[in-house]
């Protein structure tokens, strides 16, 4: 098969965002439901400004989205988004589909020639 180079742009951003343990912890926390930034900072034992750098990366990657929580940034509510996870899954699905198609063709060949 050819080299694996299928649409790595989005997956690139997703994996880069997931490469950091703090950000993975935040994703873990958000899997339980939306949370305000201040609560996330407390949970990962980080100051709000230190965590906000990570939250910015997560927002940019599209893994999470934030809802305005009034004037106080600590109250912004963070929610997990499905789409980037789906993109990563679909990359793996494409590798799977490649082989499923090849095996399907193998089967047709057998049935045609035997």
């Amino acid at each position, binding site marked *: *098969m*050819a080299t694996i*180079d299928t649409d790595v742009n989005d997956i690139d951003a997703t994996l880069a965002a997931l490469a950091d343990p703090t950000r993975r912890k935040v994703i873990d926390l958000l899997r339980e439901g939306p949370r305000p930034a201040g609560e996330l900072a407390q949970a990962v034992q980080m100051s709000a400004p230190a965590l906000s750098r990570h939250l910015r990366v997560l927002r940019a990657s599209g893994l999470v989205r934030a809802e305005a929580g009034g004037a106080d940034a600590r109250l912004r509510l963070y929610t*997990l988004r499905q789409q980037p996870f789906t993109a990563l899954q679909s990359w793996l699905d494409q590798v799977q589909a490649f082989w499923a198609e090849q095996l399907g063709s193998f089967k047709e060949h057998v049935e045609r020639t035997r």
Partner: protein
Amino acid sequence: MSSVRASVTVPIDPATAFRVFTDEIDAWYVRGRHSWVDPARAVGIRFEDGYLRELWSDGGHVDTGRILAWEPPRRLVWADLLNDGEMEIEVAFSAVEGGTEVVLEHRGLDTLPPDVAGRIRRGYSWNIALGWFAGQWQGAQGREAG
């Protein structure tokens, strides 16, 4: 999640299935967008000299896989030579009612280095991210809020 599987059942015995899979790969291999290293020159594919080999119109070739196990009628394994990392493809042939079940497993997708496709150069590891992802994705499913 670091591996993918595909399977099919064919109405022949395992020894024949192994032979058709290997000897006749050029007859059944799908000529698709992702099938070739060099789509402009590729004219065929063959298992020969211990390699899975893509043949070119100018008489040249490129080895896309190195055979690690050649055990008819049961098992065939080759190492992917195109992508850095340690990917392996194993094909197992088992007798089942009505013929042979062929199970293909493509392993080691999480061993691809960060610069796969030459575009990812930020120093993170696919291994960590994909490994983590493998355990998390199912749980994250269905929690999309918008």
